[in-house]
């Protein structure tokens, strides 16, 4: 499918109702990474993602999402059990539609399970968010192709 130049209104990901496990760092950049990865992946396929403009009707395809879970995991558990416990996970769900109504839903989850000596939870969660963004974009494109 060719989506070149097709406008796409990408709502900022919502934290409403999200389960955010305790972290020692600011989790907002994690959501930014998700949003960035999603926009970059959509742009790669020719879509033209943009923020909603207050007071103006939504343009083209409308994508909105909310965070389900942002879990930095546990460095100690990753160090002890490597692949099996303590993974950093970022999960989102959302809707794809046009200006009138949604016509599809997506659910993406990014997980980072391994890093040397347990790794840095912030970096792993950020990577997981990027992975979730790419996964969400793939699902959105599949929804658009099936339509």
């Amino acid at each position, binding site marked *: 499918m060719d989506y070149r130049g097709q406008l796409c*209104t990408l*709502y*900022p*990901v*919502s*934290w*409403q*109702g*999200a*389960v955010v*496990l305790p972290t020692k760092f600011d989790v907002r950049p994690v959501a930014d990474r998700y949003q960035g990865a999603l926009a970059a992946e959509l742009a790669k396929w020719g879509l033209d993602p943009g*923020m*909603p*403009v*207050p*007071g*103006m*009707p*939504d343009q083209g395809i*409308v994508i*909105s*999402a*909310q965070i*389900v*879970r942002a*879990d930095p995991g546990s460095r100690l558990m990753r160090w*002890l*059990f490597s692949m*099996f*416990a303590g993974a950093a996970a970022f*999960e989102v*769900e959302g*809707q794809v*539609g046009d*200006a*009138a*109504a*949604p016509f599809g839903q997506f*659910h993406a989850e990014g997980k980072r399970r391994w890093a040397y000596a347990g790794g840095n939870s912030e970096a792993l969660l950020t990577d997981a968010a990027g992975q979730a963004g790419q996964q969400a974009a793939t699902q959105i494109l599949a929804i658009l192709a099936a339509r």
Partner: protein
Amino acid sequence: MNTGQPPGHPPTGYPPNYGPPPQIRSRLQWRAYLRSRLDAGQPLPQLLYEMAASGIGQSDSYALVAEVCVAMRKRALGFLIGGAIAVVVGLAVTFMTLQMAQSGGGRNYIVWWGPVVFGAMAALYGLRLLSCVPRVP
């Protein structure tokens, strides 16, 4: 008309044209919430009360809790069984090589302590996880 915010402002997250926004927590969010709270040792009745206060029906609440319990139990049993197998394999290799060394007149044998120690830790972790899984009435 949307009320979307420009970058840098608090996100709105939901297009107003789509009608009323979903419940404060979606089903997936409730599932993640329940799991995190049960893992942290919060009593089930408190969570059920919280769900009832959010307007979730009793049957839906129990269905959600049952789903979460199944997932938690599966994970706990994975650790418990996997850990136990690792311990058994580690001990078996150690004693087999010890016996071979004794009967063959050799002096070298393998003490495979890694699977024994880490398997035991995994099994204990599995037991701890299993203890957090509530009994659903």
